[in-house]
C-alpha cells in the first residue's frame, strides 16, 4: 500500500511543478491566479496523502487550514484586480469626457 501513496505523491508533485511553470509564464494575471489556486488545491491533496504515507494523521488539520487560507487568498486577489479594472474603466471614461 505504501507505493500507491508514493505514486500518488509523485503525480501530485508533477502537477504542482506544472502549475508553477504556468504561473511563471502565464500571459495574463488571471492565468497566474488560476495557477496559484490550482497549486493550493494540490497542496491540500498532497498534505492529505503525505499524512497517510508517514502515518501521522495530524497533517490533515494542516490540509484543512491550508484549504481555508487558499480560498480566502484567491478571493482577496480577485477582488483587488476586479476593483482595479473598474477603477481603470472609470479613468478612461473621464479621459474620454475631456
Amino acid at each position, binding site marked *: 500500500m505504501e507505493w500507491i501513496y508514493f505514486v500518488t505523491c509523485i503525480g501530485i508533485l508533477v502537477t504542482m511543478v506544472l502549475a508553477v511553470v504556468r504561473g511563471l509564464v502565464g500571459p495574463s494575471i488571471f492565468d497566474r491566479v488560476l495557477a496559484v489556486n*490550482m497549486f493550493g488545491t494540490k497542496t491540500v491533496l498532497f498534505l492529505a496523502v503525505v499524512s497517510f504515507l508517514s502515518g501521522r494523521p495530524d497533517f490533515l488539520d494542516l490540509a484543512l487550514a491550508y484549504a481555508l487560507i487558499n480560498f480566502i487568498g484567491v478571493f482577496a486577489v480577485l477582488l483587488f484586480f476586479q476593483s482595479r479594472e473598474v477603477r481603470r474603466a*472609470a479613468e*478612461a471614461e473621464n479621459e474620454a469626457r475631456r
Partner: protein
Amino acid sequence: MDLLLDIIASVCLIAGAFLVFVGGFGVMRMPDFYTRMHAASLTDTGGAALILIGLMLQGGLTLAPVKLIAIFLFLFLTSPTASYALANAALLSGLKPVCRNETGSALPTGQVVATGSPDAAKPAGKPAAKKTAPKKTARKKTDAKKAVKKKAAKKPAGKSARKSS
C-alpha cells in the same frame, strides 16, 4: 474484506493521480485562459474526489475519515466558487475567449463577439463600429463598467454593499 478495501482504495488513488496529472498537463498545453480553467477544474473535481475517497477507505474507524470528509466538503464548496469568481473577473476585464468561425480559421480575439460576454460585448457592436480605433477601446471600457454596475445591482445586498464601500 481488507484486501477488497485495499484494491478499491488503490484504484481510486491511481485514477485520482492520473486525473490530477492530466489536468496539470492541460493547464500547460491549452491555448487559452478559459480552456486552461477547464483543465484546472478537472483536477479540482475528479482528481480531488477520487484521491480523498481513496484515503477515506484507508482511514479505518478513526478521526481521519471525518477530517477527510470535512476537507472534501470544503473543497467542493469553494472550488466552483473560486472558478466562477475567476471567470467573472477575467470576462469583466475584457479577456475574450479564442474562437473559430465556420471555415475553421481562427479569428483575432478582438473581433469575436458571438460566444464572448453577452452583456459586455453585444451592445458595443453597432455604435463602436463607426468610431475610430482609440475611441472604440474607450467605449468598450465604459460598457464593461456598465456591465459591472449591472452585475453589482443583481447581486445580494451584502456583497454589493461591501463592493461600494
